[in-house]
C-alpha cells in the first residue's frame, strides 16, 4: 500500500468511513501483533496490546501528518504501549528472559560464514533476537523483516536515519557475536 492510498483511506476515516480503518487494521495487524508478541512473549497480552494500539491510532488519527508514512507512526505508538505495559508489569519481556544458545558443539564445523549459519535454524534465530536489546531487535525486524527503508526505521524508533543505520549494523554484529560465542564455547540449549 503506497502513501497516496494510505492518505486516501485516512481522509475517508476522518470523514466517518470506519470501513477504511478496517483496511488499515487488516494490512498492519500482522507486524503489530508480532511486535507485541516479541515484547511480551504472551499471546493474550499481544492480542490486547494490538487492539489498544489500533484504538489509540484511531483516536489520534487527526494528529497524523499526511507527509509521513502511516506504518512507522503506528509502530511508534505500538512500541510505546508495549513499553508502558512492561513497566506496569514490572518485569522484563518474557521473550528476553529466554536463554539464547546458538550452536550446539560439534555442529557447524569450520569458521567460514556459511558454516557459521549451518547451526542457525529457524527455531534458534527468534531466541537470539529475543536476547537482543529491544532497540537493536526492532531495528533489525523493521529493516529486514518488514522491509522498511532506513528513514522509516528511524521514524518508527524515534531516532535519526543515521541512528537507525547504526542500530541495524550493531544489531547484526551483536547477533553474529552471540553466534560466535555460543559456537566457540559449545553451549547447549538450556530453556
Amino acid at each position, binding site marked *: 500500500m503506497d502513501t497516496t492510498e494510505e492518505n486516501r483511506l485516512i481522509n475517508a476515516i*476522518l470523514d466517518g468511513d470506519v470501513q477504511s480503518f478496517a483496511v488499515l*487494521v487488516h494490512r498492519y495487524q500482522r507486524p503489530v501483533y*508480532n511486535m507485541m508478541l516479541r515484547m511480551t512473549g504472551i499471546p493474550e497480552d499481544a492480542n490486547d496490546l494490538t487492539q489498544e494500539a489500533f484504538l489509540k491510532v484511531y483516536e489520534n*488519527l487527526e494528529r497524523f501528518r499526511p507527509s509521513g508514512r502511516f506504518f512507522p507512526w503506528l509502530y511508534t505508538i505500538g512500541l510505546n504501549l508495549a513499553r508502558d505495559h512492561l513497566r506496569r508489569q514490572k518485569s522484563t519481556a518474557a521473550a528476553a528472559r529466554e536463554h539464547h544458545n546458538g550452536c550446539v558443539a560439534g555442529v557447524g564445523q569450520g569458521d567460514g560464514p556459511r558454516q557459521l549459519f549451518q547451526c542457525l535454524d529457524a527455531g534458534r534465530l527468534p531466541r537470539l533476537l529475543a536476547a537482543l536489546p529491544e532497540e537493536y531487535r526492532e531495528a533489525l525486524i523493521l529493516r529486514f523483516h518488514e*522491509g522498511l*527503508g532506513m528513514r522509516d526505521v528511524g521514524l518508527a524508533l524515534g531516532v535519526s536515519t543515521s541512528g537507525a543505520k547504526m542500530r541495524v549494523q550493531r544489531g547484526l554484529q551483536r*547477533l553474529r557475536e552471540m553466534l560466535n560465542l555460543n559456537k566457540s564455547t559449545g553451549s547447549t540449549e538450556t530453556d
Partner: protein
Amino acid sequence: MSKQAERSRSQESLRLLAGQIARLPDAQPPPGLVDAIMGRIQPKKRPWWQIWMRRIQTPWAAVPLQAVPVALAIILIVGGVAFFKGNRGGPTAPPSDHAGLAPVTLVLEWPTARKVAVIGSFNHWNPEGYQMHRDTPEGPWRLILELSQGRYAYAFLIDDHWHVPDPHSLLQQDDGFGNFNSALIVEKGKTNANEI
C-alpha cells in the same frame, strides 16, 4: 588472511544473517482481531471548522455548477494549444512524473535459462516488455528499470515458467500463494533493499 578478505567475509556473514531475519516466520494474529478492534470504534465526525477549511482548500467543491462548462472550455483551449506546440518537432520537456525516477539494475545469474523476464508490482506481474538480456551466452541476465520512490515486490520468470525470487535480495516476502517474492525499496532516488 588479508584485511580485505577478512572484511569481505565479515560482510558476507552479516548479509546471511540479515537474510535469515527476512525469512523468519510470523505468528498469525488471532482470527477475530480485526472484528474486535472494529467493534470498539465509532465513526468519526470532523468538527465544523475542518469541514469549512476543506471546502476552502478544495476549489472545485465551491465552484457553482454553471462554471463547469467554462472551465472545460478553458481546459480544451489550453490543451489544444499545448498539443499543437508539442507537435512542431521542437525539444520537449520530459513528463513531469519522470522526475524522481531512479535507475535500478537487476542481475540474475542463471546460465541455463533460455529467457528471463522480471515481473513485479511495478508492471502488474506482466512480463511483456520486461525481458532481461545478457551480453554473452553464459553471462548474467540484466535489466535496468526506472522506478519512482516506493516499495516493490518482484521476482524473475525463467523460461516462462519458473517463479524465482532474487537470490541477491535480502528482503523476501511470502505472496500468500506459496511463492516468495523479493522486495525492493527505492528511496529518494536510490535503491536500498540490500543496504545493511
